């Protein structure tokens, strides 16, 4: 297989007398037979190299490992090392490549094998122990290991004697997906600019710079109907138009990669799996608004994404696709990475700008909007990773093509991070307009362990929990708002009967309350009061010292909705304005659970510990004393080899005894 930066050798050989060989290269790759003014020899040279780079035509076996964060968390590094050692020992000439994530996290670690003249085959749930078998059976003997296969990629057309294996696109998890933004993720080597270019990369940027002006680019994005993928759904083209019209000698493009929503990892997957796509999108945005400098504000918790971005920027610069005088058009764009320091509020655009400027990440009042006075007071556009990653796809295929995907008001696809109590945890990209039910049940495979579906939480701490009665709603910005949720950044957490909705509201309020920046009072104080009300709801009568305490508990429930409205209406920024959504949506759809907690002091899911009583089944208890030793409060008494018992007043419901009992003798009521 071709080495990294092979194109560089080609264009220095083929177009060495030209100032901007990369332009010729991309023209050759994007030409549809008309040659684009290039000679047959040039086109042929480029094509054969492209086939080599994309593994259409290669001589050595290639092993591709999904090494995104989820792959690594499942031990991909050890598998990589095992392959390396074994290939060395056996003296096998094979190429080992680490890719991003194909999205099927539930089946990690995924290892793809591409043998010459064979289709690419995917093995799933691979462990270190499987490595010798894969090398022996598949790489040496060219046989499929039946139990381990996920599927084959049909791309190469010659399924050969591996035709019995599922095609990737026929797997239920992939069948209803439409991979537009994630098309390259897990398929190409994210650190190879050559593979990205071979797959059509940087053609959109070239098209914008050489065939369009900034107005046309803005119009194309407007016509395509792309809307911000970070939450609010503001039309991207409109944002760009305002910034383009804004007067200023200096403008900035900022990418919001501070993906802080718990349960969301779409942006990480794009940055780890296809970082060039996002960078290309940013360069196009810069051209559209007339900016020459950009920042990627990325969470420090994503070290792999940052490392890959650094390499991406370096490679793009070496190819003349970033930096000064890009492709000889006179347009310059320099990109820097800023590491976030862990503050959820920095996902709010003006707070993010303050953070880049080295201040505390507190939001600014709007107006002035960033498109007039943003970073360092200059006109600035801020979009998130997924939004930028949509731009090259939109431009390359045209607004007409793009606007055919999705619904009337929500165009294109959306990536969701599907997690929680669902069989196929992973990253899914679907066209706007599919229903939540299709995502959870058809793609996600439903609820594991025969449990009952209860709700799906969409939009993280700003969104809502939706029950069975509304999950046939199509996924688009407006429909979701109408049922009390929002698109958010794309976290989808599935919950079953063992999740308590009051506890969920409490969980989000704890999060928001600790992440509130403290600048405006409704958010700072209001969320704290909301949390107190929720905590009282799920507290035991033992915690109440007087009748007044009991009255406070009821009073809280009366004020819960009103207080939520006040926080929503009077907070300064998006964080506060959506902070009460998890509370409101759970009250709206699960009011009876709130009432049970309030009136009966019962938690049907068995989650709110204070409302439970721990007891020991004297028939099952063998008196092994493990629970008594584990109990941090010394609330368990009993003699060795005799049944123990729990002193209820001392019990703090830490669950240590139940979790540690080998005989299932401890139960709750």
């Amino acid at each position, binding site marked *: 297989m071709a080495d990294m930066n092979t194109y560089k050798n080609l264009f220095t050989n083929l177009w060495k007398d030209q100032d901007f060989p990369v332009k010729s290269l991309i023209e050759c790759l994007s030409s549809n037979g008309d040659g684009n003014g290039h000679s047959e020899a040039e086109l042929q040279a480029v094509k054969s190299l492209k086939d080599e780079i994309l593994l259409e035509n290669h001589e050595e076996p290639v092993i591709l490992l999904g090494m995104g964060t989820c792959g690594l*968390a499942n031990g991909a590094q050890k598998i990589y090392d095992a392959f390396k050692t074994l290939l060395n020992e056996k003296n096998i000439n094979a190429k080992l490549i680490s890719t991003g994530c194909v999205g099927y996290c539930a089946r990690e670690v995924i290892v793809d094998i591409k043998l010459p003249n064979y289709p690419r085959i995917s093995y799933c749930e691979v462990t270190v122990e499987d490595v010798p078998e894969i090398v022996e059976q598949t790489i040496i003997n060219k046989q499929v290991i039946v139990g381990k296969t996920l599927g084959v990629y049909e791309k190469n057309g010659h399924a050969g004697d591996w035709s019995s294996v599922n095609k990737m696109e026929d797997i239920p998890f992939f069948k209803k997906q439409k991979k537009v933004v994630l098309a390259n993720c897990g398929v190409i080597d994210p650190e190879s600019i050559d593979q990205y270019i071979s797959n059509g990369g940087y053609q959109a940027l070239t098209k914008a710079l050489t065939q369009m002006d900034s107005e046309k680019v803005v119009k194309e994005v407007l016509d395509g109907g792309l809307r911000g993928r970070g939450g609010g759904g503001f039309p991207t083209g409109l944002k760009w138009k305002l910034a383009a019209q804004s007067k200023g000698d200096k403008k900035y493009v900022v990418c919001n990669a501070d993906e802080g929503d718990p*349960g969301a*990892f779409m942006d990480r997957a794009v940055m780890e799996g296809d970082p060039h796509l996002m960078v290309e999108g940013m360069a196009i945005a810069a051209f559209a608004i007339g900016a020459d400098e950009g920042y990627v504000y990325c969470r420090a918790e994503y070290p792999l994404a940052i490392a890959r971005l650094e390499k991406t920027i370096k490679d793009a610069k070496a190819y003349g696709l970033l930096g000064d005088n890009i492709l000889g058009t006179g347009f310059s764009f320099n990109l820097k990475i800023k590491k976030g320091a862990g503050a959820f509020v920095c996902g709010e655009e003006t707070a993010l700008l303050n953070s*880049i400027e080295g201040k*505390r990440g507190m939001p600014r009042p709007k107006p002035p909007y960033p498109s007039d006075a943003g970073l360092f007071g200059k006109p600035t556009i801020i979009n998130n990773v997924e939004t930028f990653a949509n731009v090259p796809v939109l431009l390359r295929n045209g607004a007409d093509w793009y606007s055919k995907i999705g619904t009337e008001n929500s165009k294109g696809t959306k990536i969701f991070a599907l997690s*929680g109590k669902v069989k196929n945890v992973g990253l899914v990209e679907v066209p706007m307009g599919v229903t939540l039910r299709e995502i959870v049940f058809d793609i996600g495979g439903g609820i594991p362990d025969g449990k009952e579906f209860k709700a799906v939480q969409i939009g993280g701490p700003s969104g809502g929990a939706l029950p069975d009665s509304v999950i046939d709603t199509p996924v688009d910005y407006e429909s979701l708002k109408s049922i009390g949720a929002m698109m958010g950044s794309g*976290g989808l957490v599935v919950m079953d009967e063992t999740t308590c909705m009051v506890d969920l509201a409490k969980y989000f309020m704890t999060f928001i309350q600790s992440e509130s920046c403290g600048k405006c009072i409704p958010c700072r104080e209001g969320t704290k009061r909301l949390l107190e009300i929720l905590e009282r709801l799920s507290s035991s009568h033992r915690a109440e010292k007087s009748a007044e305490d009991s009255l406070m508990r009821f009073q809280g429930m009366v004020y819960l909705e009103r207080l939520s409205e006040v926080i929503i209406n009077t907070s300064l920024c998006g964080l506060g304005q959506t902070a009460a959504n998890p509370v409101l949506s759970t009250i709206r759809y699960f009011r009876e659970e709130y009432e049970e907690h309030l009136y009966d002091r019962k938690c049907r899911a068995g989650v709110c510990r204070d409302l439970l009583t721990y007891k020991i089944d004297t028939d099952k208890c063998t008196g092994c004393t493990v629970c008594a030793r584990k109990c941090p409060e010394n609330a368990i008494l009993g003699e060795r080899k005799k049944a123990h018992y729990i002193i209820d007043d001392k019990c703090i419901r830490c669950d*240590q005894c139940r*979790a540690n009992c080998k005989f299932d003798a401890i139960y709750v009521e």
Partner: protein
Amino acid sequence: METQQIFEKYPPGDPSVLIPILQDIQEVQGYLSEEEMNKVATHTKLPVSRIYGVATFYNQFRLKPLGKYIIRVCRGTACHVKGSLDILQTLENELEISAGDTTKDLQFSIETVACIGACSIAPVISINDEYYGHLTVKKIQKLIAEYRQK
């Protein structure tokens, strides 16, 4: 790397480099001491109160030294519905410290993070750079015992 060498990478008097400087210092020293923050104030020509304000605003910065093993407990939504609170409480019980603290022998620190992004193996924790997924209360006790042996 000395703090002085870190300063050389960043021009003096530029407030926008404050966060990267603090990140670099913490990377080397493990935490931000009062002494270092004073030096940063001189270099960036900002009041110390501003340095302290930034250092306490962001979750990443620590004003106390950390243990040898940093245990990060994911408290994301997916981990929460799969019982990460139990995992956290078990850790706190085992090590006899609460989240955000370090054991007296400087062996373990517990931190909570909003989301590690490894939702497929929830509930998940990381100890230094190693991830441990599909955890249960029992597994966590074994894990800590193993680390104590190290």
